[in-house]
């Protein structure tokens, strides 16, 4: 089975997941993103790399931040951006996912940025494009179900590299709801691919995927154990609907045991950085003092996110 993300020359054809993406391509994306961050400081923030191309933001699930950063990234590359909030239009009228895609292809789309509530939806679209001989159209996964959020994983790697330079000497902890998190899956895939020797996941067993160790991580139930001497703390968002019920008794208890406070963070290395994919639940997974503290790099993550998305889209648009 050929990796559906790569074309026959081994170049990036779609960005669907970081799981199974070669290390060389991940590094290439991070390297490509570097000059784009500097560009953002300039007065004229535009490059003509995607001039004349149409990028369709196809969001079947609500999103503000990811959609906006993709839009900014595409516009800075001079693409025409069309935003479709499909959750309120065609699917409500019974149109299938692939019918929607076919219709947009008929409008001369060059790239789809897809968010969908079902794992594997971007794979399905990519497969469909290949089956119908439309190799010139690229798919970028902007988050699918619990499966993957590759650009988030990449911007997290960019952030880590920015502050820590290397990956091979790091200990990284991922904290919270790993089970439902596409962000965590993409982070784990990227960290292990880039050679981080120790990736820990911390949280209650109810929020842990089955056989999580087989993803190449070590499980730590408590923050005391899990945060000891780490270089990077990656917090995950806890969805409101999962705070009370059979997975967790209450947000209060979650905060008490796994919420990141200055006291718990003291277990980490003194120069450890704190990351969060946003939007944050202050007082549930992270204390405001930490979120706004000197070790937090949460806002730089957002800035780097634009550069990384520019890198991905420019690489896809170049072949």
């Amino acid at each position, binding site marked *: *089975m050929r990796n559906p993300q790569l074309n026959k020359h081994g170049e990036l054809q779609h960005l669907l997941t970081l799981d199974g993406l070669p290390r060389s391509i991940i590094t290439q994306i991070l390297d490509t993103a570097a000059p784009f961050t500097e560009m953002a400081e300039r007065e004229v923030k535009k490059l003509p790399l995607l001039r004349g191309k149409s990028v369709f933001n196809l969001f079947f699930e609500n999103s503000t931040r990811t959609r906006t950063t993709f839009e900014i990234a595409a516009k800075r590359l001079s693409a025409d951006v069309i935003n479709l909030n499909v959750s309120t239009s065609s699917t409500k009228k019974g149109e*299938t996912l692939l019918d929607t895609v076919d219709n947009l292809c008929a409008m001369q789309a060059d790239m789809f940025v897809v968010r969908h509530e079902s*794992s*594997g939806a971007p794979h399905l679209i990519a*497969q469909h494009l290949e089956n119908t001989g439309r190799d010139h159209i690229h798919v970028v996964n902007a988050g699918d*179900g*619990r499966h993957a959020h590759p650009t988030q994983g990449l911007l997290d790697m960019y952030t880590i590299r920015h502050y820590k330079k290397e990956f091979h000497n790091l200990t990284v902890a991922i904290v919270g709801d790993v089970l439902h998190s596409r962000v965590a*899956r993409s982070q784990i895939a990227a960290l292990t691919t880039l050679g981080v020797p120790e990736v820990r996941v911390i949280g209650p067993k109810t929020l842990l995927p*089955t056989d999580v160790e087989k993803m190449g991580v070590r499980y730590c139930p408590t923050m005391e154990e899990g945060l000891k001497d780490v270089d990077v703390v990656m917090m995950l968002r806890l969805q409101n609907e999962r705070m009370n019920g059979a997975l967790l008794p209450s947000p209060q208890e979650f905060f008490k045991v796994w919420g990141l406070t200055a006291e718990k963070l003291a277990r980490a290395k003194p120069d450890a950085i704190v990351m969060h994919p946003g939007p944050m639940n202050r007082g549930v997974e992270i204390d405001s003092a930490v979120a706004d503290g000197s070790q937090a790099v949460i806002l730089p993550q957002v800035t780097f996110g634009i550069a990384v998305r520019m890198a991905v889209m420019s690489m896809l648009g170049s072949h």
Partner: protein
Amino acid sequence: MKIHIQNGRLIDPANRLDGQHDLFIADGKIVGVGSAPDGFTAERTIDASGLVVAPGLIDLAARLREPGFEYKATLESEMDAAMAGGVTSLAIPPDTDPVLDEPGLVEMLCYRAKKLNRAHVYPVGALTIGLKGQQLSEMAELVEAGCVAFSQANTPILDTRVLGRAMQYAATFGFRVWLQPIDPHLARGGVAHDGEVASRLGLPGIPASSEIIALFTYLQMARLTGARLHITRLSSADSLALIDQARADGVDVTCDVAVHHLHLCDMDIGYFNPHCHVIPPLRSQRDRIALARAVAEGRINAICSDHTPVDDDAKQAPFSESEPGTTGLELLLPLTLKWAAEHKLPLIDALARITSEAARIAGIAKGGHLSVGARADICIFDPDAHQLISRSTLKSQGKNTPFLGLELPGRVHHTLVEGTPMYAAS
């Protein structure tokens, strides 16, 4: 019509017969094995040189999609598929729309099938009205209408007391109860085996424990009620020990497995292949190996296709939104032969799983064997010829199978139903 099938290798698992024997058919029945009865003059001769002559196959689970889902398949299209697959008897699960919980519906289905005059149809009635798990169906009436057993298909009964009573009521008459072990709470929302692959792909899992816990309950209920229990579609290795133990305790229990579970595991989902979305889910490689071995050892009695034609639209969706199921009538024989070859199992033992043993489970006395006097349901096939499985060669309206594009052994040359040639390979 009087037919003489000559020069074939006759394999009849029920009578432990495997050798060069001619077969003689008259008035829809087998009238001679090896030698013709006195005064027999064949009106037609079928040359089976180099071919196997076996009883027509019996499939313990074939969804024909009527009534209710005619856009997915019809009796006509699926009967053609059965004939092309050498399958002459079909047990039909009750999960049609409306479900098979009313004698009139069952009679209608049997009547429609009989009019088409191809494979024999054996409806499995709903154990509870609407498969809702609340009110018992009219089992005695349903049997009169033609049902051979009672099941809940893939919809388990939530209330264990209702389950116990349904089994008790069936046991009153000695009716067979076919149950698929699914704990509804543990399986809720799941679409793939809860293991490494589902975790990586972010697919909601169905843990093996959902099967084992339900199975434990069913076996316990069989002990208490004395019901004749048949467990359908085993998927996990750890279920086997429970079945063994129950048998050792004297519980009357048989079990089957879907043929794709002998060949595929969760790794085959690959990049979200919706053709691998089946219920029960494809489990780990360890489970697959244990199941395949258990059928060879006879601990699992029968193999079925769990034939579920699904239209392309319902499959062309993200994995968890795609409709589960795989088409299988035309793959039952090839995949059974492939499994037998992998286990170096004699053909006669392999065929027993899809003929005589299946007949015993479904209570079919007239079919599944080639004794003199039996119904002349025959499948004549070449066990060594391979053929490509493709959308265009499949007769079933459902083209949904993970085996598309593969070459599989076993080419059916002739299918006879009650002595009438219904299918001949072109």
